[in-house]
């Protein structure tokens, strides 16, 4: 029994090595997430208090809160989603229901996948060129448009994927009852794919809620409270960037607080989106 051939022993050793390495890699990846979350809680919790949500960003060296960047971020994220999601849904509808295997649909799909992974800072440059330069100043609108451009590819992708999953029998049944195609899509296909599309939109919101790079040259920042979308607008990511890079302890603490806020919002959005996605697979 103990006389194992050397070849077999070597193969077994090599295999143990792979198993150990795979286990180690997974442990590192998982641990990394928890280390980041732990540090966020450690440094951010002290900044988390009622003043964070009721006071404006302070000048250096004094206490304050993050009310104006929180509002700015919510406002621009909502507007960005309101612009981007319908565009994405309609384009995704075209790919799944009309274009399908046509050449133009293939090109749109290809370009969309590139937009999906394209550096977001490039989008910032683009919006700077078409909006900020033309209007002559940074603005909340420009920030919202930059975010909308990031929403589109995510929503296009999920909408198309989800609509393709809808069984054709449903469409055929509705068509046989005399419904015109647009009605089949809106009342049958959309309804069947609803949860999946919702998941896509939530993932898109989660993505833009933490985006910093495209806002740097579009919304810029604003020390004061404003709901005027025509003016530069404060937003959490840019404030975190500015405050974290500053030498002031108060600002750095606020940056951690903002970072904690943003990360947990995004993680909750992500997890909710996943739960919504499993719903749909159960109900079908």
């Amino acid at each position: 029994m103990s006389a194992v051939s050397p070849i077999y022993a070597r193969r077994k050793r090599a295999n143990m090595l792979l198993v150990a390495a795979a286990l180690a890699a997974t442990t590192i990846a998982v641990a990394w997430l928890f280390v980041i979350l732990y540090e966020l809680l450690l440094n951010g919790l002290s900044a988390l208090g009622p003043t964070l949500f009721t006071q404006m960003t302070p000048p250096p060296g004094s206490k304050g809160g993050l009310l104006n960047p929180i509002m700015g971020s919510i406002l621009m994220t909502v507007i960005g989603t309101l612009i981007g999601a319908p565009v994405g849904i309609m384009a995704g509808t075209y790919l799944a229901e009309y274009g399908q295997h046509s050449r133009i649909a293939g090109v749109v799909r290809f370009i969309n996948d590139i937009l999906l992974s394209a550096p977001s800072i490039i989008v910032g440059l683009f919006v700077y060129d078409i909006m900020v330069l033309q209007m002559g100043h940074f603005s909340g609108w420009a920030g919202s448009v930059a975010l909308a451009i990031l929403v589109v590819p995510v929503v296009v992708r999920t909408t198309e994927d989800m609509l393709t999953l809808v069984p054709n029998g449903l469409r055929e049944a509705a068509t046989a009852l005399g419904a015109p195609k647009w009605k089949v899509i809106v009342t049958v296909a959309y309804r069947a794919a609803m949860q999946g599309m919702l998941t896509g939109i939530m993932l898109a919101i989660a993505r833009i809620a933490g985006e910093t790079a495209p806002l740097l040259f579009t919304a810029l920042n604003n020390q004061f409270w404003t709901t005027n979308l025509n003016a530069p607008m404060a937003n959490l990511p840019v404030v975190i960037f500015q405050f974290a890079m500053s030498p002031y302890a108060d600002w750095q603490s606020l940056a951690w607080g903002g970072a904690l806020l943003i990360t947990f919002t995004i993680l909750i959005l992500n997890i909710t989106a996943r739960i919504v996605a499993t719903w749909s697979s159960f109900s079908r």
Partner: protein
Amino acid sequence: MTDIAARQLPRSSNGKIGDPLFRGVATFFAVLVLVILSGVMIALVHGALPALGHFGFGFLLTDSWNPVTDKFGALAPIVGTLLTSAIAMLIGIPLAFGVAVFITELCPVWLKRPLSTIIELLAAVPSIIYGIWGLFVFAPFMQSYVEPAIVNTLGNVPGIGRFFAGPPLGIGILTAGIILGIMVLPFISSIMRDVFETVPLILKESAYGLGSTTWEVMWQVVLPFTRIGVVGGIMLGLGRALGETMAVTFVIGNAHRVQTSILAPGTTISASLANEFTEAVGDLYLSSLFALGFILFVITFIVLAIAKLMLVQMSKRAGT
């Protein structure tokens, strides 16, 4: 009867207006996706032209970056971008492969879903969080533990020593590269996992049946079968690493010089843009930054296009 017929008539005419209208709107927005990308390209070229015209081809090959004398060259950011991405790939690929192997082959079924979710949440954490964490937690850690060790060991090796020399600052190319590696890990591993799962079960079972170990099945059956998909996933991760902005901006040090040591501060294209764009005064300065953006766009476009083509080929093969 007549009642019903009367009520149905206007409905059936709905399709005559509704259908072309709906189709038209859908087509319009699909084409808008193309317009956005072409718009990005045109805007970048338009912004970059003055600088490219002024410096010519030499823009790519000089590393001076001096706003006072209006001399700009893209060499330092380009080298920095490529170096940080290379380090990211060196770290991210093996880790991603390990994670994908663990999830597809080794882990118990009940753990698969939660584990995949945790890895995907790693991708959901915004890059600015990696940045602030990198600056306050990871860079000091690198400075006090990892970098002195590197300087004292690899730094003394004749020949390659100068690539690992210099004072341990904590911030620099290496730190940025490591953080990037962790950031692209989930993108690469989720694609690896997906393509590994396209391998027909019977292939793997035959190999196991012949007495292969897990390692041999992965290396000699699964990887050859999924090679294109795996490389496509790696390219996708590379595309992400090249364009990543905030995480890098925090920890790279923003130094416009080409240095031999990977411990030294440097800059990348995206970090230069993030740091300098809003402060750039002078048309040539601004245009040079646009030119940097254009170079980044071209590089990532090519990398992502290759990735996409490979993945399409993979899914075609999996379909047959």
